[in-house]
């Protein structure tokens, strides 16, 4: 996650509180999704950005995970997401983010 986005996440958390923030990822590869998820839960693994050593423990989900998908209007999903669902590997992406969430998130949607 680039340094600017890390700062934006940090600022939002300071303003609204970590328990009120949910991060929804749209990354296209599982490896990248895992790094993003780790950054907003356990801190920046590259130790380069504002979230280095800052374990925010945020609730983080991939857009393909059922908890998020069920919230989306089916018509909007068809228009915006259906094609990418065929292109990407939704299962691997969901699993990558869920792994990080289970290990490091202090908050979830439940």
């Amino acid at each position: 996650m680039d340094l600017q986005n890390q700062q934006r996440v940090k600022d939002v958390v300071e303003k609204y509180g970590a328990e009120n923030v949910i991060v929804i990822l749209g990354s296209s590869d599982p490896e990248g999704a895992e790094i993003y998820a780790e950054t907003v839960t356990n801190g920046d693994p590259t130790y380069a950005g504002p979230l280095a050593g800052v374990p925010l423990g945020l609730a983080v989900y991939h857009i393909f995970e059922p908890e998020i998908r069920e919230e989306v209007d089916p018509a909007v999903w068809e228009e915006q997401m259906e094609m990418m669902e065929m292109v990407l590997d939704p299962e691997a992406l969901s699993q990558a983010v869920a792994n990080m969430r289970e290990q490091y998130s202090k908050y979830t949607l439940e």
Partner: protein
Amino acid sequence: MRKVAIKEYAYCLNHTPELAYHYGNTPFWERKIKGESEFLLSLSKSIRTYDEAIGYAPNQAFIGGISLEELEAHQTPWYQNPLKDVSRYGTFGEIMPEDEFLGLMDICDVFDIIWLEQSFSKKVEDKLQAHPLMNSSILQRLEKGHIFEEIEKEIREDGAVPLYSGGEIVGCCRKAHEFDECLSSYVLLENIACKAGGVLALLHLLKRANMKPEEVDFIIECSEEAAGDMNQRGGGNFAKSIGEIAGCSNASGCDIRGFCAGPVYALVDAAAQVASGVRENVVVLAGGALPKLYMNARDHVKKGMPALEDMLGNFAVLLAPEDGESPVMRLDAVGKHSIGAGASPQAITEALVYKPLKRIGLGFLDVDKYAAELQNPEITLPAGAGNVPEANFKMIAALAVMKRELDKAGMTDFIKTRGMPGFAPTQGHIPSGVPFIGYACENIKNGKMKRAMIIGKGSLFLARLTNLSDGVSFMIEAPSPAVEEKVETLTKEEVKNTILEVLADIAKSLKGANAK
């Protein structure tokens, strides 16, 4: 409206590892912030030689040294399986080594910005004299050079940035203003490198077209660099400055920008000029992006790979009125991503692929090859950016399934047959569809293909002006079949009878006139 032919095309690379090591953005800022760090030390051990660069299969595919079919069949990873018996020159252009490229940059500098050391300048002059495209009017622009002490002083006291060859300082790029950042030595280095790449591609284009430089009407440059001073930082004009060096004295020109989609926008614009009759022939070209060199080197080094982003890419395409032989651009099916189209990949693919096809009554399967974002995956995959061209082909196939023009089971085959391996260096505007124009035209001319779609996409958010997506596309097809004019032929007898009839009429009218 006239149809527009793609008359010629040229593709070149400049192997510039030392410019990359010092002035590619990633190593440049690493050095500025951390000094000679561990990463830079590792990077210095991952630099490719010129022979390694010209033996790298995607580089040869870019200049037409091998075909895309040969590239696809070549064993991967490509960097571990070099090609044998390769040449500097391919069908479409060449891979120029760095010392000659520094000489070409000096040739392209008309403001005494580039200083080369005397003995280096002489060495480069000798090499460039052997170059098939460097004529005397170009070579006379190469300066005799400066003594080393003068160069050292410029670097030490006046903010010049050093130029290296073989690890030694062989020249410098000077600043052009005391405090204007747009005219700093770094920015000028970036712009002169881009200009020099454009000149090289133009020279190859003119040779391929067997055309005199004076015959070019207009040049559109479409890189991602900004030339100007602090009062107009993107004022331009790369196009005319490039034409000047190549001797295109009758051409005018301007620059068009659109991030990575710039070249496709420029081609559509150039085609419109030719189709409307405003210009007879227009060259669209671009040099490479120096800051993007070694952009992903951190990941390449970490994974024990050679630093592959050591190539500046450049291209030139010549458009002219349809000639009945050259493939044509189909201007009634230009894909447009409108402001209101939306930013999802689905919306973009629909706007750029589905809608233009539908407009002219064609479907997804009527296009033999789609070319979008042709970045070499061997460069992007280790950096976590995925296989960009493959992702595009998957999106097009998935949309074809959604539009019920393809069975889901047919997606893999669609991607394989209508896509292609990425083979372009990660130079932003260079990979965006245009590297395939040469291959598309060759294949259409030899009957292997009927139709190709070239797709450009741009990331506008990078300029922090808008979050909108961007893109543009067009199709290339075979020229219209020549229409044979049906000429009615007359027999000798018919001609004789007609003449007699006319003479009889004249005689009658003369008689009538005398009677009055």
